[in-house]
């Protein structure tokens, strides 16, 4: 099996602060890999380096064997990487449907002249994008909100809209930054299923998530970060038994227990 996404020795510093240091792991097709760690462990920073928002200070990112370190997000999108944001990046004043249609931007490319003249080919492309977008909205349970302005949706609904838009790019690698944040139990379960379904179709998924139950349920492999360093990795059962991981999450308590014991 070919590795879809390979992270090797990735690191970055802001001023004197080493936010992420020497992190390596791989994601295979159809695999769900989760990155976990306490707040401030560097998870989102790691995501931003992988997806081209930040230029890494050290290390390489390989997408399907090709070095894509530090190339800009729109080029990564063209090469099959798609992502969502913890704090949402939505086209606020467009409708929900238009947001999803925007995800088809790359597949829709045609000539300006054909578009202006409304030639059949360009009409077909536009219709196909709308149809695809509608189906995706159906999948994330937003079909009824299609004509609403995106800015008026609830946080949980916007999360799902962002996932739909990311899927519209037909990605090979999908990075999800806290997809279940702000969602209730039912919505979380829906997102669970959606992620599993997408992975089953062969997409490599990299996930940052705080909902541990969800992480343990759906991840094949877990990478644990603390203070910007990878302190453990493995399958959910192994990771959850790892003393370093327990210490990172419950550090002060363990130390307290030791001191008093």
């Amino acid at each position, binding site marked *: 099996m070919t590795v879809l996404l390979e992270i090797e020795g990735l690191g970055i510093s802001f001023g004197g602060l080493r936010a992420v240091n020497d992190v390596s792991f791989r994601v295979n097709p159809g695999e769900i890999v989760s990155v976990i760690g306490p707040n401030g462990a560097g998870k989102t920073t790691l995501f931003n380096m992988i997806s081209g*928002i930040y230029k890494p200070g050290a290390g390489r990112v390989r997408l399907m064997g090709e070095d894509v370190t530090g190339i*800009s*997000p*729109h080029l990564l*999108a*063209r090469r099959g990487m*798609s*992502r969502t*944001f913890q704090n949402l*990046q*939505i*086209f*606020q*004043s*467009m409708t929900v449907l238009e947001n999803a249609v*925007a*995800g088809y*931007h*790359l597949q*829709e*490319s*045609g000539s*300006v002249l054909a*578009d*202006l003249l*409304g030639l059949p080919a360009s009409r077909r492309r536009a219709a196909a994008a709308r149809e695809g977008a509608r189906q995706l909205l159906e999948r994330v349970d937003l079909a009824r909100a299609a004509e609403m*302005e995106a*800015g*008026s949706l609830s946080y949980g609904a916007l999360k799902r809209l962002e996932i739909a*838009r*990311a899927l*519209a*790019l037909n990605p090979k690698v999908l990075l999800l930054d806290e997809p279940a944040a702000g969602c209730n139990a039912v919505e979380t379960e829906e997102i669970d299923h959606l992620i599993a379904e997408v992975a089953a179709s062969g997409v490599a998924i990299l996930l940052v998530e705080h909902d541990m139950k969800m992480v343990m349920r759906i991840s094949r492999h877990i990478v644990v970060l603390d203070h910007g360093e990878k302190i453990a990795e493995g399958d959910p059962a192994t990771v959850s038994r790892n003393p370093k991981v327990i210490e990172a999450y419950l550090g002060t308590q363990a130390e307290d227990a030791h001191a008093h014991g």
Partner: protein
Amino acid sequence: MPELMQFLLSGVTVGAVYALVALGFTIIYNASDVVNFAQGEFVMLGGMVTVFAHHAGLPLPLAALIAILSTAGIGVALNKLAIEPARGAPVVSLIIITIGASIFIRGVTQLVFDKQLHRFPAFSGDEPIRVLGATILPQSLWVIAGAVAVFVGLWLFFTRTLIGRAVLATSNNRLAARLVGINTGWVMTLSFALSAGIGALAGVLVTPITLVSYDVGIALALKGFAAAMLGGMGNPKGALVGGILLGLLEALTAGYVSSQYKDAAAFVVILAVLFAMPQGLFGKKSTDRV
């Protein structure tokens, strides 16, 4: 009655020029939220370059084409050399940069060309056409047709074409646009080229009527900006309607009150409209959420 007709005709002509300037504002604003105060300089360059290329012996259409293309090039250079390096700066800083660019372009034009007033012959002669007892210059019809053509072209561009929608997506959320594969750098380049080209076209069309010199841009930028605000910044329809309304207001004030008050009257009306409708006549309510 013929008097009113005369005022209306001249108002629409002036308004069409304002509309063209306002449309130029619209494009760059849509792509970047920046109000480009060098827009008036693009108009001036369109006129000046055409004048000097024509004097150098080139036929007028070719001179005009060269003026439009070279101004578009200057627009791209403005983006690459002044706006892009300041990426990440607040929009207000970018706007101030465009004011600096406007002063710079004016200064260079003064050195490269001169400080005289210039004109070139009207496209279809100077014989006024009689309409309902009033007269209109054939060149005015060119100006009005130019504004309408640019409006229709832009409207189709923004609603129908993928790249047009990419421009709108970029203005809405630059990061999200990049995530769906839009090359936002290219969108910016294109917007400045298009905007500068449209400004230059306005300069080419209007020079036979109003003449051109290195400093005609300031007043045009101010009026075009007022027109764009009146119609609703960012909306091509607003730019067209705002421009024509502003032109009519000026012409009617000049005709029935006094030409000394025409600017004041226009701005008073704009202020009144913006008091009641801060987003302009066609502006969308902003729905930013934090």
